[in-house]
């Protein structure tokens, strides 16, 4: 009997008799064929993700010349430098503040919109379209629109305030207000996507659950608390993670609205990296900042999965 040696590789477990098992034949060419299909992704990821990631870490240990080539090895000095630099610490603080404002506010707003848009009403499709439309607004377009809305004299916001008899606000010129203004713009831009995802999550909840709860006499808020939110938790988990990562990556709003000012109150980390690298040509310290950014996102993701996932109720 010719028990081919191939069978070991097919990886089936003892006693596993799949009626419709995966095709285990012919295995010989499979590995190389798979590599062929994966090759484009693999090459691109290597060149544009893996290599630059390690290169960034590498560069962060060097001083660089004008071409961005590493010239002097300085060990952790770049890190020491940025962590004592007032500018970077300010940037870090601004970033954290920005994340803490935009993520909860954005997610709650999107949840609210999704909840009211998930009801069966006439013309609901119209409202859904409106709510998701911001997804099509680019960073540049949104920022330019809001730049005008924030305009000290012409802007609609200050005009409204003066109509109401309130004193005007220096939206982008007052350091306290500037970070809020950038946040508002960001939330406005990002609600569309979050709304669409949460609405999808709501629509996936089995209608029978509500029918049953209705028969048992549960009111709207009770259903919201005991059915909707628990069932929605995987969606919320996803959208919170995505929003967090997005918030850390904010750039365009800052570039158009404030250029990091006033008094560096909106100098978010990506903008800081951009300036350090492409205005000051300090690739070494910029890379060190980039590594910190990567670290932030890594920590956020890990924390999310560690603590968030436990509370998530999967169907």
């Amino acid at each position, binding site marked *: *009997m*010719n*028990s*081919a040696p*191939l*069978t*070991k590789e*097919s990886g*089936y*477990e*003892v*006693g*596993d*008799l799949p*009626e*419709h*098992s995966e*095709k*285990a*034949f*012919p*295995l010989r060419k499979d590995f190389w064929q798979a590599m062929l299909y994966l090759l484009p992704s693999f090459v691109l990821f290597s060149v544009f993700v893996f290599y630059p990631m390690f290169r960034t870490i590498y560069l962060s240990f060097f001083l660089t010349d004008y071409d961005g080539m590493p010239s002097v090895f300085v060990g952790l000095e770049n890190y020491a430098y940025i962590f004592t630099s007032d500018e970077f610490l300010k940037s870090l603080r601004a970033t954290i503040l920005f994340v803490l404002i935009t993520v909860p506010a954005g997610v709650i707003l999107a949840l609210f919109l999704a909840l009211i848009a998930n009801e069966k009403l006439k013309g609901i499709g119209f409202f859904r379209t409106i709510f998701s439309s911001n997804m099509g607004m680019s960073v540049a377009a949104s920022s330019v629109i809001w730049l005008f809305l924030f305009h000290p004299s012409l802007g609609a916001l200050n005009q409204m305030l003066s109509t109401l008899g309130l004193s005007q606000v220096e939206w982008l010129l007052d350091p306290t207000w500037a970070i809020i203004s950038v946040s508002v713009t960001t939330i406005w831009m990002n609600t569309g996507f979050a709304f669409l995802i949460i609405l999808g999550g709501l629509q996936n909840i089995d209608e029978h659950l509500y029918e049953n709860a209705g028969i048992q006499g549960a009111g709207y808020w009770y259903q919201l608390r005991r059915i909707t939110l628990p069932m929605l938790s995987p969606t919320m988990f996803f959208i919170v993670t995505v929003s967090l990562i997005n918030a850390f990556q904010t750039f365009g709003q800052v570039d158009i609205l404030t250029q990091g000012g006033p008094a560096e109150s909106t100098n978010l980390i990506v903008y800081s990296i951009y300036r350090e690298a492409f205005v000051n040509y300090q690739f070494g310290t910029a890379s060190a900042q980039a590594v910190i950014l990567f670290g932030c996102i890594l920590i956020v993701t890990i924390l999310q999965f560690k603590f968030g996932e436990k509370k998530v109720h999967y169907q």
Partner: protein
Amino acid sequence: MKQVKLDGLYKTYDGTTPVLSNVNATIEAGEFFVLVGPSGCGKSTLLRMIAGLEETNGGAITIGNKRADQLMPSERDLSMVFQNYALYPHLTVFDNIVFGLHVKKVPKEERKRRGRETAEMLGLTDYLKRKPRQLSGGQRQRVALARAIVDESPVCLMDEPLSNLDAKLRAHMRAEIKQIQRRLGLTIIYVTHDQVEAMTMGDRIMVLNKGVTQQIGTPLEIYNQPANPFVATFIGSPPMNIAEGEIKDHKLFIEGLGPIPLPNGGAIDQTHVYAGIRPEAVRFVHDPVREKGSGLIEVKNVEVLGNETVLMFTAAGRDWYARWSGQWPVKPGDRIPVMIDYADVALFDKASEKSIKHGQSPDVAAEISREEVLL
């Protein structure tokens, strides 16, 4: 049409535990051959080995005169019907039917003609422009069937093709597939776990259990002369009653039943046996005092089917069934005298489980020859 020969087939997934071992069979050209067995018995694996979707780890498959077990599925010149139909959801019914012809580069005109003919044969002419999702289960089944027969492959493999249909439609499709097979003279290898399908459709049946062939034969051979207790209980509904028995003093003793006397000259060497009795062979006794070998049973459940009545009772620690034709006024809890004729009992050796003696077919007395039927 081609013959398919299976020679000492062996299959393992992990290199040690056999999933199939030493499977031998010759499926004749034009034969409807059914592989039947409980789930996990290896029947689907065997079919997929014949198709080339699973590798053969030992033995040989010959299709026609060609050794096939190292060929790609498409080189084996066969068609296949899958349990879930495997229709291409993005193609219309017509394109689904002629998909294989397209791949084989059959000229367009011929493709059209054959597609239409096959669709007509299966009553699909009105649905050719639809997509599979717009069809009912039965219609999808027909499309899968049409796709399998349109390319006129000499061998057609079917993997539980009817199991997703409701009972009524299944009965209908059974007859239809059988008719098409006869009309076109197809060689069909058909996998099912349903013994009714096996009995009604197969020219011959192979019963598989735990990867080992139990018996190959015509439906009546399998029913009347089961090779072992497994086959005996697998074929027939309700199943054959099986219990351990002892032969002593020229009598067969089964716990919970009266002793069954052996006829003169019917001596058996073994003392420990399995006794198998078809439900229809458990007979009601009108006069328990006079009849030998009768005993009282306590009825646990009654199923009245209109033309027959099925009683359940306990004997030798197992559920037993008795099937009597007609409507019987019996209720659970009743104690009823029954008897079993030794001639109806099938005996199997307790150690080897091999058949010692076949029970006579209950209706064998009423058997009439074909000549009489045909007048």
